[in-house]
């Protein structure tokens, strides 16, 4: 079985087991959603002394992780995205970020990928709120190769970090040699008409959009941001200096996330027209991923339409 045929959560679990085998300081925490992250039962069985399910108590999971990190351990703690971020936001802010305790927070089933769990579990603001927190880094992998490299990077870094984790299988974008660097965005297609900026799930969607746009003769430059913070300013500016037009697409509210980061950088450095695709300041609902991404306006089709319009009016 090739790595990219595996679910992302399986690769997250494989990678954690590999790290925990190599490094006795790596510990795994869950808040009764370990089956969903993939760590239950495999990590629990493999490392019963370094696996802690705190129960349905996210604030406590964050505090315990902060204490463990304060003592030199490397805690990876996961739960659904809304509970991993907004539910324990002050705990993360004070016990982790302000105190500089390098905990690794994993938000599973981000945005529409929580699908049938609906609006209560569908977090569209984690990128925005985590990005607004000093000392916090914010990552969204686009495939298993990037995920694996990112998890290894996080285990080695001494910083508080947050990563979105989509659970399902993704098409491969990178390969075995991929090395994650938070300061480096990835140009996945070159072009001079319009810049398309995506992260995580929307990077997957963008592959189809880019193909379609190229067939139509629209030269789209596609940039994937595995790290929304730190944000690679240079790669964006180099592209926009060619295209003067940007479309952003994210599995998030359009306020404050990836689109927000792009607008901040451009407003201060190189003003250009930007169209932000994502949930238009609204909550989610139950549905499957194709339905929700189309309804909310960040499907491949929406990217194609936005890039075409940008080219036509540019």
């Amino acid at each position: 079985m090739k790595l990219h045929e595996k679910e992302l959560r399986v690769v997250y679990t494989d990678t954690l087991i590999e790290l925990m085998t190599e490094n006795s300081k790596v510990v795994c925490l869950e808040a009764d959603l370990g089956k969903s992250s993939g760590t239950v039962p495999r990590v629990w069985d493999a490392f019963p002394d370094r696996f802690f399910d705190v129960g349905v108590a996210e604030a406590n999971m964050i505090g315990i992780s902060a204490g463990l990190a304060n003592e030199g351990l490397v805690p990876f703690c996961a739960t659904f995205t809304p509970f991993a971020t907004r539910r324990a936001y002050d705990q993360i802010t004070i016990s982790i970020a302000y105190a500089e305790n390098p905990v690794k927070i994993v938000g599973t089933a981000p945005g529409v990928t929580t699908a049938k769990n609906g609006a209560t579990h569908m977090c569209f603001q984690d990128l925005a709120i985590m990005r607004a927190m000093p000392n916090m880094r914010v990552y969204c992998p686009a495939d298993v190769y990037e995920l694996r490299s990112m998890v290894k990077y996080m285990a080695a870094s001494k910083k508080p970090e947050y990563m979105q984790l989509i659970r399902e299988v993704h098409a491969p974008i990178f390969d075995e040699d991929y090395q994650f660097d938070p300061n480096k965005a990835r140009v996945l297609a070159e072009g001079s008409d319009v810049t398309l900026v995506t992260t995580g799930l929307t990077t997957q969607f963008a592959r189809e959009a880019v193909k379609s746009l190229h067939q139509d003769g629209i030269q789209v430059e596609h940039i994937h941001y595995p790290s929304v913070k730190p944000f690679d300013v240079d790669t964006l500016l180099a592209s926009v200096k060619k295209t003067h037009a940007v479309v952003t697409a994210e599995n998030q509210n359009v306020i404050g996330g990836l689109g927000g980061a792009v607008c901040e950088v451009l407003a201060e450095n190189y003003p250009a027209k930007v169209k932000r695709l994502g949930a238009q300041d609204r909550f989610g609902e139950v549905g499957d991923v194709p339905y929700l991404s189309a309804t909310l306006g960040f499907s491949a089709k929406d990217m194609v339409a936005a890039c075409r319009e940008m080219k036509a009016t540019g």
Partner: protein
Amino acid sequence: MEQIESKDQLDQLAKEFRYIVTDIMCRAGGGHIGGSLSLVEIIITLYFRILNIKPDEPRWEDRDRFILSKGHAGPTLYTALAYRGYFPKEVLLTLNANGTKLPSHVDQVITPGVDQTAGSLGQGLSCATGIALASKLHKRTNNVFCVVGDGESQEGQIWEAAMFAAHHKLDNLVVITDYNKMQIDAEVEKIVSLEPVVDKWRSFGWEVFEIDGHDWDDIYDTINKAMAVKDKPAMIVAHTVKAKGNVCYENRIECHFISIPDEDERQRVIGGVCVEGEEEPFEFNWTEGK
């Protein structure tokens, strides 16, 4: 350091602590005097009779940890840290000054000797629990001490940590509740009662003790008993008096946070630090450091 055993010495130390805490707050224009003064005997006992620490090596791995979950009592902890030599006593005068290393709420990043940042209530006990768990993972034999407030115990996160610590049998964790019976808006009994607080902790699987939080022997003996408990974390419910030892504020609701608008008020409040039976208020000589 030689442990301080004599009551006279301990009383003298408490007197100095109360004067200093009051003085540095007054100079800073105000502060959380009530919950700082209620903890004086407990903090002195920990830092001069219990904790195994090396002030010249603040991050020594095998040291005992102290987490002040009610982080607003920082000034009392800072006084103990200065007396134990983590930094010079004059630094205490920088409390809350611009650019200080001694902020109102405790900060592990900027203050030598502070083991865990706290101040947003309810979080410190979870962190202490994680620290105690880390000690177990590292197979250390040290103890982890934590002080929580009574008002703070209204936070749900306290009880999340309580469940977890008992479930994982963290017998290296000793927690003290500073039960001074008051919070910002009114008496704890009037806001949301903690009672029966001893039964609550016991029902959560903790070994529970109850003490007079200003009685040297009671504090010392009970902490030792708590450290000897096996297979459970220990809770010491310490009955204390808010703003203890400052007659201007002792046991008054308005003592949680005081503002010192001018020199007259400063003189009045500093004059409030006196000891029963003594006519003259105690005064600490900053230039001589005693």
